[in-house]
């Protein structure tokens, strides 16, 4: 047993913390208000090597590990969850899927720019009628000559319609040559593929700068070799990387929970100012004690899951525990801290207002809490 971070992991955390505090935090309110993607901040993250932490140097990564990436994600999310979400889709999911299942040629073409942070990837799984039931999709891809002809739509897809958003990896129903059976495959769709259209940006309750759109494929054509991995393992591949996405959401949720705590403790210290003692007032201090404990548990859980992943061990339960516990904890903490800061915290000039609107998202994305419980229960039984 060893709870120490390695020197490299500590360096990543400390560097990110400094970057988040100095560069990101002062901009977070404006980013949320205007809803504009912070190209300059993402470019700086790329320069610092944050977009490819777990990948080898030869693929544009920083040759770190998944623990390091998640420490980085927590620290970024503490200043602005948007950056955590960008890393979730682009690094944890899309880049990893290409890294694990792509051909050498595909890695050269797509993984390197993603890991370098020059480009961003999106992950297209959800459809209007396929949310929690993501295998119930209706998008199809038919092989015609040397091209896939894709028809259908995807929704709530983040990291789309940006200048540097290069590809979206989608799941689609295809027919296996061998026996004609319908299977789910994964196909890489570049942003300029003919027949690929991006819909209006969604107006969301929070994370308004998240580039989330509906995507349409209308006889969309991509070359045959843009199939990723096995033709009939598309769904399994997605589940593999989605598991990492769940650890990532755990780290993001921990970041926002920590940000709430930071607000609450500063506010409480100011209002206590020596004229009250814990013997005359326990309500808020005890509440803070609980919040601190829950955050520590959240952090420990996502780190354990990431650590198991680094060790190459099975971590299905731990990844889902992390996603479920961290997200539910974050939502709960936002409303508790709102009460501590009441009535001021409800005003948008206090960051807790932003956190409250944002946090609920984490119980929904990368599978709702119900889906986490379903996987956990299935695993247990």
């Amino acid at each position: 047993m060893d709870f120490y971070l390695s020197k490299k992991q500590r360096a990543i955390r400390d560097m990110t913390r400094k970057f988040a505090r100095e560069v990101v935090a002062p901009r977070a309110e404006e980013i949320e208000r205007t809803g504009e993607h912070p190209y300059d901040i993402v470019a700086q993250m790329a320069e610092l090597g944050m977009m490819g932490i777990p990948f080898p140097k030869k693929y544009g990564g920083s040759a770190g590990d998944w623990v390091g990436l998640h420490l980085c994600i927590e620290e970024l999310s503490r200043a602005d969850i948007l950056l955590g979400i960008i890393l979730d889709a682009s690094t944890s999911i899309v880049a990893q899927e290409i890294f694990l299942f792509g051909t050498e040629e595909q890695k050269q073409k797509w993984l390197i720019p993603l890991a370098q942070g020059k480009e961003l990837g999106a992950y297209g799984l959800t459809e209007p009628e396929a949310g929690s039931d993501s295998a119930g999709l209706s998008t199809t891809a038919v092989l015609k000559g040397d091209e896939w002809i894709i028809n259908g739509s995807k929704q709530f897809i983040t990291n789309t319609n940006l200048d540097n958003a290069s590809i979206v990896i989608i799941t689609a129903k295809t027919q296996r040559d061998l026996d004609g059976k319908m299977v789910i495959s994964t196909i890489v769709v570049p942003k300029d593929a003919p027949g690929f259209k991006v819909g209006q940006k969604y107006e969301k309750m929070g994370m308004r700068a998240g580039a989330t759109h509906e995507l349409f494929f209308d006889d969309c054509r991509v070359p045959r070799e843009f199939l990723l991995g096995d033709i009939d393992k598309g769904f399994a591949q997605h589940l593999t990387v989605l598991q990492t996405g769940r650890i990532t959401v755990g780290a993001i949720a921990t970041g926002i929970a920590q940000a709430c705590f930071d607000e609450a403790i500063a506010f409480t210290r100011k209002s206590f100012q020596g004229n009250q003692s814990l013997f005359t007032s326990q309500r808020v201090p005890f509440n803070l004690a609980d919040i601190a404990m829950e955050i520590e548990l959240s952090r420990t859980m996502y780190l354990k899951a990431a650590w198991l992943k680094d060790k190459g061990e099975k971590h299905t339960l731990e990844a889902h525990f992390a996603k479920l516990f961290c997200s539910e904890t974050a939502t709960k903490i936002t409303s508790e801290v709102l009460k501590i800061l009441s009535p001021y915290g409800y005003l948008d000039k206090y960051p807790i207002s932003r956190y409250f609107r944002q946090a609920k998202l984490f119980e929904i994305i990368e599978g709702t809490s119900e889906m986490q419980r379903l996987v956990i229960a299935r695993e247990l039984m």
Partner: protein
Amino acid sequence: MDFNLTKEQKDIQKAAREFAQGEFDLDVALDLEKKGHYPSEIHKRACELGFIGMHIPERYGGQGLGLLENVLVVEEFCCQHSGIGIALSLSDFGSEMLLQFGNDAQKEKYLHSITNGEATSSLAYLEKDQGGNFTSFKSIAKRNDNGYLINGNKLFVFNCTLSGPVIILCQLENKTRLAENGALVIEKHIDGLVSSSMGSRIGMRMIPMSELTFRNLEVSHECFLGSEEQGQTQFMQSLNKTNIEAAAIGTGIAQGGLNLALLYAKQREQFGRKIGSFEAIRDKLADMATKIEVARLLTYKAAWSFDRNILNSTVNCMAKMISSETALEVARDSLHIFGGYGYIVESKIEQFYRDASMVNIIGTPERTDKGLIADQVIGKI
């Protein structure tokens, strides 16, 4: 013991429901919410039909009914739409002070305009660093030969940019000493009364929320409201009604949230089934309905007691606490059932969640409520 509503009460409930269903247009609501505009047109029509100030005597334009009837209307309005519902429900905010303690001239002058929709009332009580304690104010009204000279400032004053009266709670200063708290009622649109917006916020965006600043504001003797000796008691008494109304707002929002979730759960299919047929969702909906029933019963009991002059501020505080909590929990769970759709601004439920978070700032703060309840149940130590 009788839990039935009277025929008249049921009719009022039905009329309020039909009015809200007919008048609270969703597109209009989205637009008002986005712009932060008051629903003036709808408010006007609600007044024409007698829905505002039901408990105000007929001679002042009200219906001369009880608070319970008022509660039924508030509940229906907030159930149909949290944003418009809260705005209409709080249009007579603070008028209880006028009704209970105003002299004939003051009642004549102000109550008609509140019931006929020309005005909305405001109550200025909260100050910076107030905590849960309303026994003293930093705003000072100094008595002189011509009237009073007011200095100080107030926060979170509802309806302040709309025309009508504002009731200001302050500490009275005689020639020699600081005396009791007192209340003054003045027109909001007078020279010397500086009002500035508190800015955007999580919810309750349709209601103007202002900071008021008084700098040597001169008002006449006629502005004094109630008795000089009883200022504090008057204020706390009037908050009884406010807290009950807040409880009705919470119950209504919770019911509205549940209604939306029920509709969705019966229509949305995943895994080849309506999601309302899954045990996890059914349990959630059952819990939501149970919480609402509890909140509603306590709210009705509080209103019923109020109408019979059974002074029971403990029950009022309990009703408000449980209802505001229920509103938040139910709206959160309802949004959750919508999944990704719930997080989109057009979903309506996202607004219920945001508005629900702010119910607890209406009336006394939760820490005050808890203190009052604890005093009552513990007694002397």
